[in-house]
C-alpha cells in the first residue's frame, strides 16, 4: 500500500471512526461533541493531500474486490470526485461545530444518535466522491439514503415520520426502478462499470436509446431533485437545521448532482452527449425546474421551505450544465457544486441561527431583526449575493461559465432562462434581509446568544467571498475533468 493509498484509506475511514467514537463517548458530552470537528479536520486535510496529488497527475486508487467481471469494489479518485470530497469534508468541520451549538441551544435529548448518523452520512458522501466504479457509487448512494433517514425523522413527531416515509419512498424507489437498471444496462453493453474519462458507452450503442438511458439516470438519481421527483427535499426540511444545512445543501443533494455529472463525464463522455443531441430534452427540463421552483420559492413564507425550493432550482443549474455537455458548461456545473454548497450552507446556518437565537421560522416575522442579530444577517446577505451571482462572490464564476456553455452549445435561449432566474433569486433571497434591516420591528424579540451558531455562517460567507479570488485553484481540478 503506497502512502497515497494510505491517505485515501484514512480519508474514507475517518468519518466512520468518528461515528464509532461518538458511540464510545456517549456519556461525556464534550468529548462526544468534539469527535465531529476533529474527524472533519483530519478528513479535510487528507482530502487536500489527495487533491494536490491529483493536480500533480498521480493516480490514487484502491481496489478491494471484483464482484463480477467489470464490477469491482474500488476507489479511484477522479478530478470531479476530488472537488466534491473537498467540499463535503471542509464544510463538515463547520457544520459539526454549528450542530453542537444548535442542538444544545434547542436542548435536544438524542444528540448521540444524531452525531452518529451525521458522521455515517459524511462517510457515505466521501465514499461516493472517491468511487472508481459505478456500482461502488450506487452502494454508497444507498448508504447515504439510509443513514440520513434517522436524521430526517429525528424529532420523532408524526410529521417527521410522514416526511421520512416520503423521503425514503421517492429516493429508494427511483434508485431501484431506474438508477440500478440503468447501471446494469451500462454494464451489459460495455462490460465494465469503471469510471473512465471520455466515457465507457461503446460507439455502437444505438443513438435512439441514448435519451432513454440518460432519462433513467436523470430520474433515477432522485437526490438531484429534478421536477417531478423533487418533493422529498422540501419534506426533509422537518429535520433539525444542521441536517438541512449539511445534508440538504451539501452532502445529499450534491451527491445527487455529483453522481449525475460523474455519469455525464465518466460514463457517457461529453463528446457523445453533445454530438448526439440526446440531452437536449434534459436541458429544457432543467430550465423548467430552475424557473418553476424559483417561483414556488417566492410563495413560501417559511424560511427553510424557501431555501429548499431555492436549492431545487440551483441543483438544476448543475444538471443543466451536465446536459449542455460543453466544456464551459461542465466546468461551470462543477464549480457550481462548490459555490452553491458554500453559499447555501451559509443560508441554512443563518436560518437555524435565527431559530435558536430568536425562535423565528417565518420570513414575515423577521421585520427589524437585523439590528438584533447583525452578524447573521450580514452573512445571509453575502451568501444571497453569491447565489444570485454578483461579483465579487464565488457564485458569479459558475453562472458566468454556464452562460458561456449555453451559448457554445447553440441554445442561447438558456441565457434568458438564467437571467430571469437571477432576477427571481434577487427577489426571494433578498427579501429576508430587506425586512430585517429596513422594516421597523413589530414585536419584542427574545434573543439568546449561542456563539457556536453564529461564527460558522460568518466563516462560510467569507469563504464565498474568497472563492471569487481563488477560483483559479479550483479550476486546476475542473480543467483536469474536461481537458482531453
Amino acid at each position, binding site marked *: 500500500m503506497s502512502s497515497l493509498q494510505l491517505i485515501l484509506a484514512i480519508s474514507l475511514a475517518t468519518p466512520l471512526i468518528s461515528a464509532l467514537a461518538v458511540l464510545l463517548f456517549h456519556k461525556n458530552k464534550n468529548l462526544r461533541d468534539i469527535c465531529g470537528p476533529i474527524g472533519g479536520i483530519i478528513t479535510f486535510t487528507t482530502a487536500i493531500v489527495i487533491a494536490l496529488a491529483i493536480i500533480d497527475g498521480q493516480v490514487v486508487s484502491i481496489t478491494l*474486490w471484483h*464482484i463480477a467481471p467489470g464490477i469491482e469494489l474500488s476507489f479511484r479518485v477522479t478530478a470531479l470526485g476530488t472537488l466534491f470530497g473537498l467540499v463535503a469534508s471542509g464544510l463538515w468541520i463547520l457544520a459539526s461545530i454549528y450542530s453542537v451549538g444548535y442542538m444544545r441551544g434547542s436542548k435536544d435529548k438524542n444528540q448521540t444518535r444524531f452525531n452518529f448518523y451525521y458522521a455515517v452520512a459524511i462517510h457515505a458522501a466521501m465514499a461516493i466522491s472517491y468511487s472508481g466504479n459505478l456500482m461502488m457509487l450506487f*452502494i454508497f448512494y444507498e448508504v447515504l439514503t439510509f443513514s440520513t433517514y434517522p436524521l430526517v425523522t429525528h424529532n420523532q413527531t408524526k410529521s417527521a415520520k410522514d416526511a421520512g416515509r416520503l423521503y425514503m419512498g421517492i429516493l429508494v*424507489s427511483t434508485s*431501484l*426502478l431506474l438508477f440500478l437498471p440503468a447501471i*446494469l*444496462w451500462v*454494464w*451489459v453493453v460495455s462490460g465494465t462499470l469503471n469510471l473512465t474519462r471520455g466515457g465507457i458507452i461503446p460507439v455502437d450503442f444505438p443513438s435512439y436509446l441514448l435519451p432513454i438511458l440518460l432519462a433513467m439516470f436523470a430520474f433515477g438519481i432522485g437526490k438531484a431533485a429534478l421536477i417531478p421527483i423533487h418533493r422529498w427535499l422540501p419534506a426533509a426540511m422537518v429535520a433539525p437545521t444542521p441536517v438541512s444545512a449539511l445534508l440538504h445543501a451539501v452532502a445529499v443533494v450534491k451527491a445527487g448532482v455529483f453522481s449525475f455529472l460523474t455519469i455525464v463525464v465518466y460514463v457517457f463522455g461529453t463528446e457523445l452527449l453533445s454530438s448526439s443531441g440526446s440531452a437536449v430534452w434534459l436541458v429544457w427540463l432543467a430550465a423548467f425546474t430552475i424557473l418553476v421552483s424559483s417561483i414556488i420559492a417566492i410563495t413560501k413564507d417559511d424560511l427553510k421551505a424557501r431555501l429548499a425550493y431555492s436549492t431545487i432550482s440551483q441543483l438544476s443549474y448543475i444538471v443543466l450544465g451536465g446536459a449542455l455537455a460543453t466544456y464551459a458548461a461542465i466546468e461551470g456545473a462543477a464549480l457550481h457544486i462548490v459555490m452553491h454548497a458554500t453559499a447555501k450552507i451559509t443560508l441554512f446556518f443563518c436560518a437555524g441561527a435565527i431559530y435558536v437565537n430568536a425562535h423565528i421560522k417565518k420570513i414575515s416575522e423577521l421585520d427589524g431583526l437585523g439590528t438584533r442579530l447583525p452578524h447573521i444577517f450580514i452573512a445571509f446577505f453575502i451568501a444571497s449575493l453569491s447565489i444570485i451571482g454578483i461579483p465579487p462572490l464565488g457564485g458569479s464564476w459558475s453562472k458566468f461559465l454556464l452562460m458561456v456553455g449555453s451559448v457554445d452549445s447553440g441554445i442561447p435561449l438558456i441565457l434568458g432562462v438564467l437571467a430571469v432566474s437571477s432576477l427571481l433569486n434577487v427577489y426571494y433571497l433578498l427579501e429576508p434581509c430587506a425586512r430585517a434591516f429596513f422594516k421597523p420591528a413589530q414585536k419584542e424579540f427574545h434573543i439568546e446568544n449561542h456563539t457556536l451558531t453564529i461564527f460558522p455562517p460568518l466563516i462560510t460567507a467569507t469563504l464565498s467571498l474568497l472563492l471569487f479570488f481563488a477560483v483559479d485553484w479550483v479550476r486546476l481540478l475542473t480543467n483536469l475533468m474536461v481537458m482531453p
Partner: protein
Amino acid sequence: MLILDNIPALLVAIPLLMSAIVSVISSDRIAWLFALLTTLVCLFMAYELIDIVSAKQILSYAFGGWEPPWGIAFIVDSANVYLILLVSFISVIATIYAHTMLAREIAVEDLPKAYAVWLLTIASLFGLSMTGDAFNLFVFLEISALSSITLIALGAGQDRRALIAAYNYLIIGAIGATFYVIGVGYLYAATGTLNLLNIIERLNELGTNQAAITGLAFMLAGIMVKAGIFPVHIWLPAAYSYAPSAVSSLLSAVATKVAIYYFARLIFGIFMNITQLIDFFLLYVLMPVSVTAIFYGTIAAIYQTDIKRLFALSSIAQIGYITFAFSLNSHSGVSSGVIHIINHALIKGALFMAVGIFALGIGKRATMVSLRGVGRQMPITFAGFVIAGLALIGVPLTAGFISKLYLFKAVFETGNGLFVAIIAISSALSVLYLWKIFEVMWLQEPYQPLKIEKEPAVAYISLWLMVIAIIVFGIYSNGVSSSGILAANALIGAR
C-alpha cells in the same frame, strides 16, 4: 476407489439406509447425530463429485452393472453437480438447525421417526437430481412427496392446520405425479425406452411424433406441480407456513429447486429438438405464467400478515423469476435461472430459519402483530434476518444481487424494454413487504412486554452459516456465476 467410483449410488443409498436405522433408534439425540453424520458424509461425497465431473465432463452410472437402456442410470454432469452440492450443503445446515428447533416443535417420542423421514426426503432429493431414467424419476418423486408430506404434517403439534396443508399437498401432488406418469407412458410408447439419453437419440430418429409431444406436455404439467410453478402452486403456501420451521427451511430451500432443475432439463436437454412445442410452451405458456407468478407472489406477500406464509408467497414470486429466466430461451437466461436457484435456496432457507427462531422466542406464530419490537430483543437473529431480507431484494454485496445482475443481463440481451420494466418494478415492490417487517420488528413497540425465551445457540449458528454464505457469494460471485454458465452450457449448449 470403490467409494469414489460409486458416489452417485451412495448419495442415495447411504441416507436411505441410515433412514431405516434411525427409525429404530429410541434416543432422539443419537438419531439426530446419525442424521447429521449422514448429511456430512453426503456433503463430502458431493464435493468429491465436482472433481470427478470436471475431469470427465459427464458421469453416467449404471446400477448393478446393467448398462442403459436396460438398467437404470444416474447421470451427473455440470448441469446438476452444483445442485447436488447445494442440496447436501443445505441439508447439513438444516439438520444442525433441526437439533433444537424440531425438538421444541414436535413430541419427543416422534423425533427419531421424524429424523428417519428427514433422511428419506434428502435421499429422494439426491435421487431426483441425478436420475437419468424417466420412470425412476417418478419413483423418487413419490418418495419425496410422501416423506415431505409426513414432515409437514408433523407441524400439527403447533397448529392443526398443518394436517389440512399436508392433505392438500398429498392430493395435488398425486394429481401432478399422475400427469407425469401418463406422460412417461406416452413417451415410452413412442420411443420404447425410459433412459433420458436414449430418449434423445430416439426422438431425433423419429422426428415429429404426436405421442411424444403429448407425453412431453403431460410430463411438464406434472413437474410444474411439484416445482410450485404458478398456477399449480396452490399446495405450497400452506405447506411451507404450517410445517415445523426446520422442515420449512429445508423444503423451501431445495425441494422445489430440484423439480425446477428437472423441468429445465426436460425442456432444454431432452426435448430441445421438438422445437414446435418447446418454443410455443416457453413463449406462450411459461413466460406469461412466470410474470403472473412474480406479480401475484409479490403483491400477495405485501398484504400478508403471517410471516411464514408471506415468505412462502414470496417463494412463488422467486420461482417465477427462475422460470421467467428459463422462458427467455437463451444461454444467459438459463444460466441466470440456475444462479438464482442456488442463491434463492440460501436466502429463503435463511429467512425461514430466522422466522422459526423468532417464533420460538416469542412462543407463538410470527405475525406482523406478534413480532412488534422483537428485533430489538433478539438482535443477533434480527441482524441475520435483515441481511437475508436485503439479499431477497437484491441489494449489492449479497448473493441476491448476483442473481439480479445476471437476470438483468439476460433481459437486456433480449432488447425488450418491457421485460426490464417487469423485473425492475417487481423487485422494487418486494422492498415494500420487507420494509414493513423490518419496521414492525425494529421501530414498533410491542402491545405487552415481551417474554423472550433464550434462543438456542445451535439455531443461531446454522442461521449465520447461511448468512455468511449469502455474503460470501455476494462479494465472490465467480463460483456461483461460473457454475451457472457451465450448467447452461450443459443444458442448452454453449451459444
